[in-house]
């Protein structure tokens, strides 16, 4: 059986990983170019082509490796390029264009390669250097985003070189499914899509339902919150981490196949995921008898088509089935009756991306981050009126002040922080006086907001809160599927009232009416969309009622 041994060796993840590490080791310089949606739209494709042509021209291709990576985080300063030369300090260049990139190559990379010891960046390039000692980089704790910005997401061997698929091997070869469930339960990981339900408990429930013919694991990549792009960046920067997490989940709950549901608005994430799945199939990490064990598993992708409500799990399941994405009452929960009536477990992208790390480093390590009830780290898309807008990852329990003022660099000059908004259209505002509040599931709930999927929007004092509430309500009314009356009618009526108030035609009793309708929607709507749609209004009413009453006093504006 020499052939068999030969084949096994060829597909051995340890062999592949060490071969790739040896290959990387040969280079003296690595140039990492951010190649995610943000930097790609600022022209990173052209920069990569230029760097390659300069390296060819100078005959340096053997010594310098160019890596197109996922998101490096500081999206507002893109396109970003990080130059790592052995024996020298890493340098991050920002806001590049073709001319400056050429200068970076000619005045930094090429001469630095010829120089022993440190090499200073030329004066004329200093404006384009971004200090890696900024709190934006040093205050973060990267668990989920560890690989993003450091590896080529389209090369499975590079993922393996960074410890990829070791957790899957550990699970398949040394753990029973229930041991995997126990470990995740012990870690305290909670769903990162917004609900915050214990992932281990969900898996336990799913594992208990017997697999008659089929059982599914579904990855929810329908990131619909406006102002949030965590899941997109994870899929673009480290797709294999999500696939590995899904495979471990499948093993733990006894799923027979997996489904990725991703927004159609994220073509790059879909493309990278497709390539990653292909690479897994080629390397026998998907299919029958994975890693020589009895575990058989396959995955497929289904695209969304622009419906926010499809983030709700029962609506998502209908959408995968190829129907309108309308939710249905629960129970039965999808863990009992889900996709095509079969038991299904729905997990968010970021949740799955955490799994391999927990299995490799242990539940205790994971639980060492965060607060009593919220463990681990959380990825946020920090956007709005903030200096360093981008993608960040911090331990749970980090205060809003640390996130906005230290990592985010505060509100741009001349303005003052008014509030932070989390949870998107389902969340609420957190006024500046709560800046020292730790960010975790419970604390956010106390002030009337939610963790949500990770959008964090910074609002300065020039923003009008009534209009902001109307902005969110506009969104949910437009996205309401129309199936249940409280959401369909209630949302529309609230919007009419807000519009009336905004035009200076509101009465005091309209505020009471807003609260009443909001209460009815929260109690009687069928799914999370309707139940949470009034939150932005209620939360702004709670903290900024004066802005509403001011509008009641304003002179009426002309009708449009």
């Amino acid at each position: 059986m020499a052939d068999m041994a030969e084949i096994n060796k060829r597909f051995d993840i340890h062999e592949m990983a060490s071969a790739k590490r040896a290959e990387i080791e040969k280079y003296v310089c690595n140039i990492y170019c951010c190649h995610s949606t943000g930097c790609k739209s600022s022209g990173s494709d052209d920069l990569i082509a230029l760097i390659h042509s300069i390296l060819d021209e100078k005959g340096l291709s053997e010594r310098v490796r160019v890596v197109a990576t996922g998101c490096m985080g500081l999206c507002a300063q893109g396109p970003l390029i990080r130059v790592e030369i052995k024996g020298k300090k890493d340098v991050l260049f920002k806001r590049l264009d073709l001319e400056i990139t050429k200068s970076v190559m000619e005045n930094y990379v090429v001469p630095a390669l010829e120089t022993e010891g440190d090499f200073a960046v030329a004066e004329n390039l200093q404006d384009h250097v971004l200090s890696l000692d900024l709190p934006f980089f040093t205050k973060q704790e990267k668990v989920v985003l560890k690989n993003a910005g450091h590896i080529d997401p389209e090369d499975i061997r590079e993922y393996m070189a960074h410890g990829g698929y070791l957790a899957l091997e550990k699970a398949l070869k040394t753990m029973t499914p229930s041991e995997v469930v126990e470990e995740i339960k012990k870690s305290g990981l909670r769903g990162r899509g917004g609900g915050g339900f214990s992932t281990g408990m969900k898996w336990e429930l799913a594992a208990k339902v017997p697999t008659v013919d089929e059982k599914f694991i579904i990855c929810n990549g329908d990131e619909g919150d406006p102002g949030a792009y965590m899941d997109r960046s994870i899929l673009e920067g480290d797709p294999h981490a999500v696939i590995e997490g899904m495979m471990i989940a499948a093993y733990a709950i006894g799923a027979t196949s997996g489904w990725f549901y991703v927004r159609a608005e994220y073509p790059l994430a879909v493309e990278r995921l497709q390539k990653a799945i292909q690479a897994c199939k080629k390397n026998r990490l998907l299919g029958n008898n994975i890693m020589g064990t009895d575990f058989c598993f396959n995955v497929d992708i289904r695209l969304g088509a622009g419906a926010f409500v499809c983030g709700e799990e029962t609506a998502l399941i209908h959408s995968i089935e190829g129907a309108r994405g309308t939710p249905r009452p629960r129970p039965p929960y999808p863990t009992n009756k889900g996709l095509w009536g079969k038991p299904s477990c729905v997990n968010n992208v970021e949740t799955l991306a955490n799994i391999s790390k927990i299995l490799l480093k242990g539940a205790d390590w994971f639980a060492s981050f965060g607060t009593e009830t919220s463990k681990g780290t959380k990825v946020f898309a920090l956007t709005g009126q903030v200096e360093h807008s981008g993608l960040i990852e911090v331990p749970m329990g980090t205060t809003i002040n640390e996130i906005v003022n230290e990592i985010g660099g505060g509100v741009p000059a001349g303005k003052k922080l008014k509030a932070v908004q989390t949870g998107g259209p389902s969340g609420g505002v957190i006024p500046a006086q709560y800046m020292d509040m730790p960010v975790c599931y419970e604390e956010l709930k106390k002030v009337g907001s939610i963790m949500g999927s990770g959008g964090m929007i910074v609002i300065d004092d020039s923003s009008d809160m009534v209009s902001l509430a109307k902005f969110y309500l506009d969104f949910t009314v437009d996205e309401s599927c129309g199936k249940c009356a409280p959401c369909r009618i209630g949302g529309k009526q609230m919007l009419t009232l807000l519009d009336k108030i905004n035009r200076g035609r509101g009465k005091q009793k309209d505020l009471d009416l807003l609260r009443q309708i909001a209460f009815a929607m929260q109690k009687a709507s069928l799914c999370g969309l309707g139940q949470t749609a009034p939150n932005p209004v209620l939360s702004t009413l709670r903290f900024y009622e004066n802005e509403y009453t001011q509008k009641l006093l304003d002179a009426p504006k002309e009708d449009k």
Partner: protein
Amino acid sequence: MSEETSKAAEIADKWRKKRGSLIMALHEIQGIKGYVAWEDAAMLAERMDIPLARIYEVLTFYNFFKLVAPGKAVISVCTGTACYLKGNDKVLEKFKSELKIKEGESTQDGMFHLQCVRCVGCCGLAPVCVVNGKTYGRMTPEQVPEILEEWKKAFKED
């Protein structure tokens, strides 16, 4: 059978036997012409053995699908939260006044189609517009005429 219709037939056959494939097939069909034409939907119904009413039920539910031909250049103005806070409404107004159309409409010459989209996920570059897949970040209303010129020129060269 025209080339486009045969392509649509191919798509129908490819997805027919797979589960949960209607939306995927519709995405691919829209990829050919930029919208889902009635005759293509009818063919899909026949080949995939799905009632036409069910196909339209899906087509009209999801924002992503278009039932009429959009303009040659589709201008998508992002209306996500970050873009909203950074004043993309002014950019949208400028597009409207320059093109003399409302959102969701196309210019009479069929050159431009203007639409609002939910977050495109480039919040760091807010405010953002996308024209036929090309992203324009940190937009100001003043840039609008330049962008329109750029695309007019590109079409002339074709």
